[in-house]
């Protein structure tokens, strides 16, 4: 029996678009699991009702076991799983074929607009070549580095990684893998933001001190190697967020072509996918210090504790959004909302708890709303709830 797993990340009407594709698919697509994992906003809660309301030959469930029971009952020809199962969970439990369909996102991004943006980016890069990229291996900088390499050739682009305790080893590995795969030249520098007491004190503009340290080391090295233009992966969405690090970039004359040309995260994910860059579906990955509330001192030990805990949870199969927020003795784990029911099951909860305790926390809590970007900003009143 074959299942087709679709990942839908937008509003229900667009999920309907996916389903239309499914019903015209080959017969073996008859049993369909939709992993509906939109992770922001309270719209998550309403989607179940929409799906139920529209259900005809579908069965909607909270877990992959619902897919099984639906099929066993043979009362429906497709199954919608809209909460409680990650794509990995579904794949392991019910799906033996996988199609990752981002159709809703394709609908949300005009292909014409994206094509115009990518052309504009190539033109920008040519006009400012050669370029050095502040490179972390995240979604944005990976796209920028690969595009620069492909547009300007091997000598026209240099990706520079700033390594420190706040930079997760896992992401460093991703950065290296992507660079190797796309033949992007890489240079690695050590940065020492933790040695700056203004950074370690963890004020709300902590990122300013981090980026100041990064750019003050990176820019002179780049220029000494003949790269007059230094760029970063800041995107148009970032401009709407609280990003004190952007000021440091401006002070060091670091350009942000993606933001300048109006690339949103969604644009970048789409363009990355088109280029085959594996980071296209990677969750956003800010530095480890973002897990500490403002005012809580950033230390190497704490960052290590957070990194170990998150790595342990990744090993348990949590592939989507994940943060281990540091509250002294307590680790508050934020997962994608779709994962919550799964991990509140007693046996999974025990495994999760032990994994985090092993990292050195005394207590573990699971956030009931799930992951939200800038969660600690909200908690401390820096941004609105």
């Amino acid at each position, binding site marked *: 029996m074959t299942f087709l797993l679709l990942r839908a990340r937008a509003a229900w009407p667009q999920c309907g678009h996916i389903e239309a594709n499914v019903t015209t698919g080959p017969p073996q697509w008859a049993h369909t699991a939709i992993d509906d994992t939109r992770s922001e906003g309270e719209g998550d809660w309403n989607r179940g009702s929409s799906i139920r309301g529209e259900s005809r030959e579908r069965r909607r469930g909270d877990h992959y076991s619902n897919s099984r029971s639906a099929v066993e009952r043979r009362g429906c020809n497709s199954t919608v799983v809209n909460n409680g199962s990650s794509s990995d969970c579904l794949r392991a439990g019910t799906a033996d074929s996988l199609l990752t369909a981002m159709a809703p996102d394709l609908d949300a991004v005009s292909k014409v607009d994206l094509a115009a943006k990518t052309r504009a980016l190539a033109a920008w890069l040519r006009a400012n070549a050669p370029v050095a990229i502040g490179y972390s291996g995240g979604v944005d900088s990976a796209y920028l580095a690969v595009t620069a390499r492909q547009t300007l050739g091997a000598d026209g682009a240099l990706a520079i990684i700033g390594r420190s305790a706040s930079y997760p080893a896992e992401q460093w590995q991703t950065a290296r893998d992507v660079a190797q795969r796309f033949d992007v030249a890489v240079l690695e520098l050590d940065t020492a933001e933790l040695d700056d007491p203004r950074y370690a004190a963890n004020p709300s503009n902590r990122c300013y001190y981090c980026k100041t340290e990064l750019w003050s080391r990176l820019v002179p090295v780049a220029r000494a190697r003949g790269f007059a233009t230094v760029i970063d992966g800041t995107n148009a969405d970032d401009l709407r967020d609280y990003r004190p690090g952007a000021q440091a970039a401006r002070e060091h004359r670091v350009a942000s072509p993606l933001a300048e040309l109006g690339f949103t995260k969604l644009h970048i994910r789409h363009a990355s996918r088109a280029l085959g860059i594996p980071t296209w579906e990677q969750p956003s990955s800010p530095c480890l210090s973002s897990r500490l509330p403002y005012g809580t001192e950033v230390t190497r030990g704490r960052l290590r504790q957070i990194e170990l805990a998150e790595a342990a949870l990744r090993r348990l199969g949590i592939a989507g959004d994940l943060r281990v927020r540091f509250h002294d003795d307590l680790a508050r784990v934020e997962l994608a909302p779709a994962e919550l*029911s799964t991990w509140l099951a*007693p046996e999974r909860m025990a495994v999760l708890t032990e994994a985090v305790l092993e990292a050195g926390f005394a207590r*573990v809590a*699971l*956030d009931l709303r799930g992951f939200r970007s800038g969660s600690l900003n909200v908690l401390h009143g820096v941004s609105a709830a």
Partner: protein
Amino acid sequence: MTPNDVRGDRSARNGVALAAALAMRGIECALEVRGALALLLPKPEGVAALQVDENRRAVLALAKEHGFTHVAIELPSERRRSSTPPPDAPVLRD
């Protein structure tokens, strides 16, 4: 009394009220207040209830009503069992 004391008192009062509201919804738990974070220490049946999306949504709505921006459930651990208070003990501190 400093502004922090006032805020702490208010948070504690909100915590008591939230715990009562949760109990009325059938979710019995102790509650620890950490600023705008409400940390629930539920009984096992309370944990089971929170597996249900609708219940989590209700908890989040109640917490918001009581002034909390974040709600988390402390996960029970064998390691901590000896040092934790009984789950029905009211734990309110800020």
